[in-house]
């Protein structure tokens, strides 16, 4: 199917609202992270939103790392 329209795709095919609740921004050690909840009720880092380049050098802040949701600050 080809849609010849200038409407953006996200206006025509709206995403299910449950998709939006999967990810959220939380603070961990004072650093903002975009996280996803895992099956084990932990947070898994999707993106490190810090502007401090030193925060990217630590393994525990790398994408894919997990931490318990109680560590959220």
């Amino acid at each position, binding site marked *: 199917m080809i849609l010849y329209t200038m409407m953006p795709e996200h206006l025509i095919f709206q*995403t299910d609202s449950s998709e939006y609740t999967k990810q959220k921004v939380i603070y961990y050690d004072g650093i903002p992270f975009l996280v996803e909840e895992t099956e084990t009720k932990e947070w898994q880092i999707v993106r490190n939103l810090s502007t401090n380049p030193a925060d990217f*050098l630590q393994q525990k802040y790398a994408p894919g790392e997990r931490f*318990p949701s109680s560590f959220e600050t």
Partner: protein
Amino acid sequence: MEKERYIAFESESDPNREKNEQVAENIQQLGQTNVPQMTQDTNIHCLTIVGQIEGHIQLPPQNKATKYEHVIPQIVAIEQNPNIEGLLVVLNTVGGDVEAGLAIAEMLASLSKPTVSIVLGGGHSIGVPIAVSCHYSFITETATMTIHPIRLTGLVIGVPQTFEYLDKMQERVVRFVTKHSKITEEKFKELMFSKGNLTRDIGTNVVGPDAVQYGLIDEVGGVAQAMKKLREMIDAKKSEGTMLQ
């Protein structure tokens, strides 16, 4: 409760085995084993503008997006923190919302600390004003910037808008870019309205050295040049401060 359980689990397991598991997990998830461990306070912060610049409509999570509600408080924090002396803005964006892009660009332009931008990969569309908003801009040799007229659904606050409205909006972008870079309005508009470069659209895809030639970007270079320039600017600002006293 959850925390207690977690700690108990950690104390039970053999640290070595856990480390190996950790490494295996990293290889599985990231294709890499380790990054250097160090914590260091740094006087230069780095702001990354990646993916789409998200506007008033939240994009689905599979999109990589830069959200202005994240970026603007970070810029404010950078302005306020006395330990931060300079800001490096790294761009690899396809563009996005005009108003959100201009908001970020205006925030960066009004920052009192030295700022240097570097375009890696792409700084397209509304990424152009963000790239030029910094005090000094770099582009890598292979990076490109697409300059094209603003394209909208025509819906503004849910209502289709007139051509004049969109023309005014475009004028804001053109004015911002010409004010913050060495490119002339004539040249910028010529690039914006040229035909035959993009499929079914008007505009130009400007590659690194050409962007410098047109005066849009200050210099071709990578991270080393950008950091060197930023340090020079910080030193210049410091010596300026001492001279005034």
